[in-house]
């Protein structure tokens, strides 16, 4: 399974004074089971880009293929596509509406035409995956804390059992602990259920830790599309577009500059520690 974008252009409010080109000539392929990070400054077009992946926004020109079938051909089953490509919007807790947590999570599966029991089974599974305790199932979603609400909302998309999970800034507005919990859970899902994850963020640290591949967006264009180590080696260029690399990249580059023989592509503090020890051994 794959999603392929070909020469995607998107123009907002075409023909008015507010006209703005949000995406310019985007070409990329997203494969089954990968963990893709999309990063870019505010207004770089990343949120617009992901709304194209399940056909919510139609490109001004260009084409998108899901499993080598164009999603823009007439009669294409977009509803089915949306079941396969689950999209979690920014601040997803703002779309909760049902009386109980369980009912809200059931909304997606119910729209897929599943039976009541099947919906509930899926909802319970999804809620368990995101770590919502069972006693909360019958509570109103509006009584939960911010972090819990967000997890319920993510469960609402997970319960549809998509093959691709797209998340737009899932950690925005959460405290560091809530952020780590959510990201760890997403990574766990990715590994356990072989779910392809597309994670949009403007924090390099978040993405560096989890993504197997990073796409850097700038002014509606793809600036880099590579594995994290290689993308971070362009840290000077990244700074120019207002992003920068994870702090650890700077530390490693600094050390290398001072004469310590280390690789600079470490992604986490743990990796970096190992690399520094290796470097020290090499030196002595």
């Amino acid at each position: 399974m794959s999603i392929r974008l070909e020469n995607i252009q998107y123009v907002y409010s075409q023909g008015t004074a507010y006209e703005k080109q949000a995406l310019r000539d985007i070409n990329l392929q997203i494969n089954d089971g990968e963990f893709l990070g999309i990063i870019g400054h505010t207004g770089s077009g990343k949120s617009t880009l992901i709304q194209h992946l399940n056909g919510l926004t139609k490109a001004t020109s260009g084409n998108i293929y899901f499993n080598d079938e164009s999603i823009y051909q007439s009669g294409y089953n977009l509803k089915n596509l949306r079941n396969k490509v689950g999209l979690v919007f920014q601040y997803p807790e703002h779309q909760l509406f049902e009386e109980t947590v369980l009912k809200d999570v059931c909304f997606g599966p119910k729209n897929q035409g599943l039976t009541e029991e099947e919906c509930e089974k899926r909802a319970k599974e999804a809620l368990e995956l995101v770590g919502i305790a069972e006693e909360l199932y019958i509570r109103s979603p509006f009584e939960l804390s911010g972090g819990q609400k967000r997890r319920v909302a993510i469960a609402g998309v997970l319960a549809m059992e998509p093959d691709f999970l797209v998340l737009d800034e899932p950690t925005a507005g959460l405290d560091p602990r809530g952020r780590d919990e959510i990201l760890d859970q997403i990574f766990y899902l990715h590994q356990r259920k072989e779910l392809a994850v597309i994670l949009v963020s403007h924090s390099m640290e978040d993405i560096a830790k989890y993504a197997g591949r990073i796409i850097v967006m700038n002014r509606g264009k793809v600036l880099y599309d590579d594995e994290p180590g290689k993308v971070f080696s362009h840290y000077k260029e990244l700074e120019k577009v207002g992003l920068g690399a994870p702090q650890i990249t700077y530390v490693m580059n600094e050390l290398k500059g001072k004469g310590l023989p280390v690789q600079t592509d470490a992604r986490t503090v743990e990796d970096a520690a190992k690399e520094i020890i290796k470097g020290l051994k090499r030196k002595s």
Partner: protein
Amino acid sequence: MIRDITIGQYYPARSILHRLDPRVKLVSTFLYLISLFIFQSISGYIIVTIFLGVVVSLSKVPLSYIMRGLKPILILLLVTICFNLFLTRTGSVLFSIGFVKITEGGLRSAVYMGIRLIYLIIGSSLMTFTTTPNELTDGIEKLFKPLQKIKVPVHEVAMIMAIALRFIPILLDETDKIMKAQIARGADLESGNLFQKAKAMIPILVPLFISAFRRATDLAMAMESRGYHGGEGRTKMKPLAYKKRDYYAYLIMLFYVVVIFVIGRYYPLRIWIF
């Protein structure tokens, strides 16, 4: 999808109309609307058309953009025209099939009413196209200031209007976002009968109301923490002040009203039945 509504929206451009004092535009629009109804002959329509044409071209708002604002009132327009056309029974009969009769008077009032409605919408939307909501409420507040003497809460009403106007694009955006989010969860907003469609709106309306209340409390809190306590003693960063061009605009408006009154009334032009 929702962004397409243009009526009542500001259109940013640099034109003399955009620079005019909002009070001038409010008063002029009011006079213009009255002027539309004080004549009964072609000569009046010619003057209004010329005046409107000049103002539109001065505003630098594209004509196609203005025309798009007419779309929402198309049905109202058609109903009005039909009513006038078929139900007015004065003058000789021009055309008849069975009980449907079109009379001279009917045709005349249908055409007159249609043009008047269209000009009315164009004229008033031109004001909102060239004036930001903030300027507009500033203008209204200042114009109605004298009413404060008789205990009308002018400032409060203006503030409520300003906030309401400010929230329209925000809530439209929010609706768009929530709709997309629910569609992504498989919500079906289009098919089904009226009852099913209404039911399908619940997943959109509930979050929308919650977000409106959340924004309202946030805003109230923010205003209070910045010391807002109503209009008394409040000063403006950019107080409205008339400039030379504003006085000229008033003069032109006065001239226009006099011309249309005199010519429309006393020098009627008659072509066929009009």
